[in-house]
């Protein structure tokens, strides 16, 4: 198996901030909008460097989505920044009509997704956003694995024509994706090859999947770890190639078990290649206050949960 040294500990939102700043320098069509969370989204460097292309909208997310849609008329590439909850559920109809249905080239960038937001609790810990956004026709949904990849993804979506939902988070997290590993929208990455079980993960849980693969290796189980950073469009070829080899799958996501990565994979497998699949996901509940580590443990999203799910999946083969 392939092991990945921890290069650093950084938040994925800072990867977004770094990518956005870089885009500011390289593409003058890029404009950024924020709803009173500039610091939280790490957009301050962009705001400072490009004040003419940074728009503070205040606490008015619906208006922000509409303004972003309007900015595309005239050739701008707007990046909106707020928490994942306020980027999706709060403004679903605005995103649906003014952006998705209208086919506008808006990049919806969402931080503080999932449980690892931590102490703020369930009002802010959205666990339904992947499902909401995946259901919108034409919407690309990306959940990068670490700081480096979030930076890469931020840059990549500027060149992608069409609406995108980019989901990232708040906590400092292991940086392990090598900076030179190419990122391509819609192309899953086999991070560690294996033969016994396919562990398909997105976002923060990719690291947990790699940790689990190390544990499994000690037990003589060779797990294949795939980073499914793009949930829509799904890299069906990569997923099918892996499960054809391993015969079972585990999906790992910081999301409700309904509507997210797991269901995306399950739909593919049911349609093309019925395969035993186990979910590592939140079991249809809201979150609560706590530290990220405590929450991942309590809600069953930690390394031992991935290991157990892998063994269950293998037993069902």
């Amino acid at each position, binding site marked *: 198996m392939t092991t990945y040294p921890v290069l650093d500990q950084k938040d994925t939102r800072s990867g977004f901030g770094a990518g956005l700043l870089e885009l500011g320098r390289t593409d003058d069509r890029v*404009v950024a909008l924020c709803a009173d969370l500039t610091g939280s989204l790490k957009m301050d460097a962009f705001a400072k460097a490009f004040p*003419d*292309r940074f*728009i503070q*909208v*205040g606490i*008015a997310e*619906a*208006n*922000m*989505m*509409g*303004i*972003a*849609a*309007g*900015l*595309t*008329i*005239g*050739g*701008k590439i*707007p990046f909106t920044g707020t928490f994942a909850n306020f980027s999706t559920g709060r403004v679903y*109809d*605005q995103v*649906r*009509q*003014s952006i998705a*249905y*209208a*086919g506008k080239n808006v990049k919806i960038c969402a931080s503080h997704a999932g449980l690892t937001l931590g102490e703020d609790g369930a009002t802010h810990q959205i666990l339904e956003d992947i499902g909401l956004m995946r259901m919108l026709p034409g919407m690309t949904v990306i959940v990068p694995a670490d700081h480096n990849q979030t930076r890469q993804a931020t840059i990549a979506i500027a060149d992608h024509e069409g609406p995108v939902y980019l989901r990232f988070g708040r906590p400092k997290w292991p940086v392990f994706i090598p900076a030179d590993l190419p990122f391509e929208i819609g192309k899953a990455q086999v991070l560690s090859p294996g033969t016994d079980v396919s562990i398909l993960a997105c976002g923060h849980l990719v690291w947990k999947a790699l940790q689990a693969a190390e544990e499994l290796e000690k037990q003589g189980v060779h797990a294949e770890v795939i980073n499914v950073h793009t949930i829509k469009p799904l890299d069906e070829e990569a997923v099918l190639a892996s499960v054809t080899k391993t015969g079972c799958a585990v999906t790992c996501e910081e999301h409700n078990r309904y509507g997210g990565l797991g269901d995306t994979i399950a739909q593919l497998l049911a349609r093309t290649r019925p395969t035993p699949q186990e979910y590592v996901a939140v079991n249809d509940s809201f979150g609560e206050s706590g530290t990220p580590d405590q929450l991942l443990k309590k809600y069953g999203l930690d390394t031992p949960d991935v290991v157990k799910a892998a063994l269950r999946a293998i037993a069902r083969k």
Partner: protein
Amino acid sequence: MTTPAPDKASGGSGEGRTIDELQRIATQVRRDIVRMVHACQSGHPGGSLGCADFFTALYFRVLRHDPAHFTMDGIGEDLFFLSNGHISPVFYSVLARSGYFPVQELATFRKLDSRLQGHPTTHEGLPGVRMASGSLGQGLSVAIGAALAKRLNGDDRLVYSLHGDGELQEGQIWEAAMFAAAHRVDNLISTVDYNGRQIDGDVDQVLPLGDLKAKWTAFGWDVLETDGNDMARLLGTLAEAKARTGHGKPVMVLMHTEMGHGVDFMMGSHEWHGIAPNDAQLAQAMAQLPETFGDY
């Protein structure tokens, strides 16, 4: 002839059209509205009829636009956004009559495989439409975004938008209103179809708007009022609105209109907001609206 001849005298801007000619166009637009809604037995004739004069004034005289060469970005052109998308019949009629697409296509309104969806959308690639609308309250934000893009592009053309008065009950409108004033979006002229009616009844019965002029003024807009069914007054007010752009404030025009204007039995209540006339009612309406530029 189904399309009024291009107005060469003013470089296509329509400034040479007389009030009489504009009124004759508006009459044909009203015929189109009633016929379209009758043909598919659905749609919203009341608000469409009430706004026929405004749309005619806008598309045949006020806007600096290039219907024959539509581009989504509209660089160097004035842009219009319809926020209360349910009055699509009037929008489609003026778009066709001003040359965005063939008038014959009006016959496809609300039918399967049509570009003329019940509510306007960019999804079907209909020239002249730059935004999807129907779910209310979203168009002002979009118009502001387009106005900001013009500012960033150094494009000195203007952005117009239209909203229903009932639509102003949506909270997003006031988020947008606050933003436009705070960011001095002064290349924007928004208008309200102030007809006092909405689906469930009179606006004053459903949810009164209070002193609308005072509200927009308090939000930092430069507010004008006019009679939206008096072509001469309307043109004067729109010219005044244009003159007030570029002075640090967004401009609002509250247009007092009559829902159903031009068809006597559709006026005076909210009942014709969203229902279609039967054959006899169509004939009755047509008798009140002489064919001026040829039916589609």
